[in-house]
């Protein structure tokens, strides 16, 4: 039973981080927006949804929607400085922004519960299930979200919007010369990514039913980056695969703690060390990741040949 529970937990976390990785990949892999503050979307989605549920008592689907909307709005705010900051400086700004968000959650105790976080967050449709079967339901809910977002993001990246986004990533000046409003397109990409990240946050909060600022440290962003570096950028399947690999490693090594002669602290450090090594190996030997960006081919077998 515990093994099954472990796998259900693992798969649910892969689903949640899969959403976060797809969101990050949409920014980094498609739009070329180097976001080192991805955890901010996660944090805002989680806090918004759980506070709407615990403080006001709004029905949970609306809390999820609220988390997505606020996180999307935050994506809009984050995209504003792309106008004046070059991409590397913008990346630094995002890192700082995410920390500011976490510090607000830590210090505005009247709203967020400060370091004690938000407790007893209600879980959707809990009354319909027993304590044993609920995790399975939640896993299915998470997987439906992943499939839905995968489908929506694939439609977007395959559309003229997705083409514009990729073109801006590769040659922004050219896009300007063709009359593309590149600022607006980047803004839209950030809003889309923010909403996906916010959904992941809401799913996470209502799953573990207790959140605190500890859940939203910069190291989470690092994990999401590891996922898209390993899985591959510029395609959505790579992000999910990367989330699977990194989470499998990250979660399962927590449970073998009892079997290795190491203190929990050194285990945690060792875990990060190994993920860091993995990143170095991938960046050096397989920079495109496990799954490459897909080329869009027209007339695969036309008279013109390839």
């Amino acid at each position, binding site marked *: 039973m515990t093994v099954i529970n472990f796998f259900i937990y693992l798969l649910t976390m892969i689903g949640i981080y899969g959403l976060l990785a797809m969101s990050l990949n949409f920014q980094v892999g498609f739009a070329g927006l180097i976001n080192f503050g991805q955890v901010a979307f996660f944090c805002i989605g989680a806090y918004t949804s759980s506070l709407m549920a615990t403080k006001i008592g709004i029905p949970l689907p609306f809390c999820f929607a609220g988390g997505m909307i606020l996180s999307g709005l935050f994506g809009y705010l984050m995209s504003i400085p792309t106008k004046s900051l070059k991409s590397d400086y913008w990346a630094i700004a995002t890192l700082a922004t995410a920390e500011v968000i976490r510090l607000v959650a830590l210090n505005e105790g009247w709203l967020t519960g400060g370091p004690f976080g938000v407790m007893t967050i209600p879980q959707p449709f809990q009354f319909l299930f027993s304590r044993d079967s609920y995790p399975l339901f939640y896993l299915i809910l998470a997987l439906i979200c992943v499939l839905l977002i995968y489908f929506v993001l694939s439609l977007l990246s395959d559309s003229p919007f997705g*083409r514009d986004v990729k073109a801006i990533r590769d040659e922004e000046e050219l896009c300007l*010369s063709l009359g593309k409003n590149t600022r607006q*397109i980047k803004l839209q990409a950030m809003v889309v990514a923010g909403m996906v990240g916010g959904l992941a946050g809401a799913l996470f909060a209502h799953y573990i039913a207790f959140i605190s600022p500890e859940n939203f440290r910069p190291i989470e962003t690092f994990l999401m980056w590891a996922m898209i570096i390993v899985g591959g950028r510029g395609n959505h399947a790579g992000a999910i695969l990367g989330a699977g690999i990194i989470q499998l490693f990250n979660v399962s090594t927590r449970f073998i703690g009892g079997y290795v002669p190491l203190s929990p602290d050194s285990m945690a450090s060792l875990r990060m060390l190994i993920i860091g090594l993995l990143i170095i190996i991938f960046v050096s030997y397989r920079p495109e990741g496990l799954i490459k960006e897909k*080329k869009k081919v027209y007339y695969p077998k036309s008279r013109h040949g390839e």
Partner: protein
Amino acid sequence: MLKIKDLQKNFGNLRALDRVSLEVEGDSIFGLIGPNGSGKTTLFNVVSGFYEKDGGEIYFKEERIDGLTPDRIARKGLCRTFQIAKAPEKLTILENMMLAAKNQVGENPFSALFTRRRTARVEKENLDRSMELLEVLQLVDLKNEYAGDLSGGQKKLLSLGRVFMLNPDMILLDEPTAGVNPTLTMQLMKAIKELQQREHKSVFIIEHSMKVISSICDKVFVLNFGKKMAEGTPAEIQKNEKVLEAYLGGA
């Protein structure tokens, strides 16, 4: 069509453009020549909004455009190409062509998701036009190759293709044929001329080859040290002694 008045641009103490005034008429091909460093590309960069001017005025279709962002200037119908051709490397040639099309549907997330049928129809039209243009440019066999894998000359061709795809009222071409083989150069010049005559566009072209200039241009401006040195028909320019000395190396 395009009117430039006393345009100035400085880089530090260097006067890249020193009170340049010129007028490009509609429905014509104008050339811009001058030695290296004379300010030709700078002029294009200022006109297309990529550089800020330090003085003067620019009018396009009777409307002031200096101070506007490059994308707004492009949307008003003034499109430029780059001397070192740019092409999004992870888009194929066909995608590059379709990227340039005007009035696309599905260019924002909302319409991309909710007007998919209309998007698909417009995409099909743009795809067909892209294929026609690629035939002309002899790039059709490479249509599914990444633009990043092309040679410099092929990227130049692709830039022209994108401009034809966008179909603006006025085109600024910055050395469109540098790096393109001579036969294809002449074909391209013919294609530019044909397009211009068929659709009554204005073309303003930076070009080093006097042969190319005299074969297609109605009028030529000569820049030297950021100043307009001469203007006239290609035949007049070729006889202008000042130009011969500065540009053609004396005779």
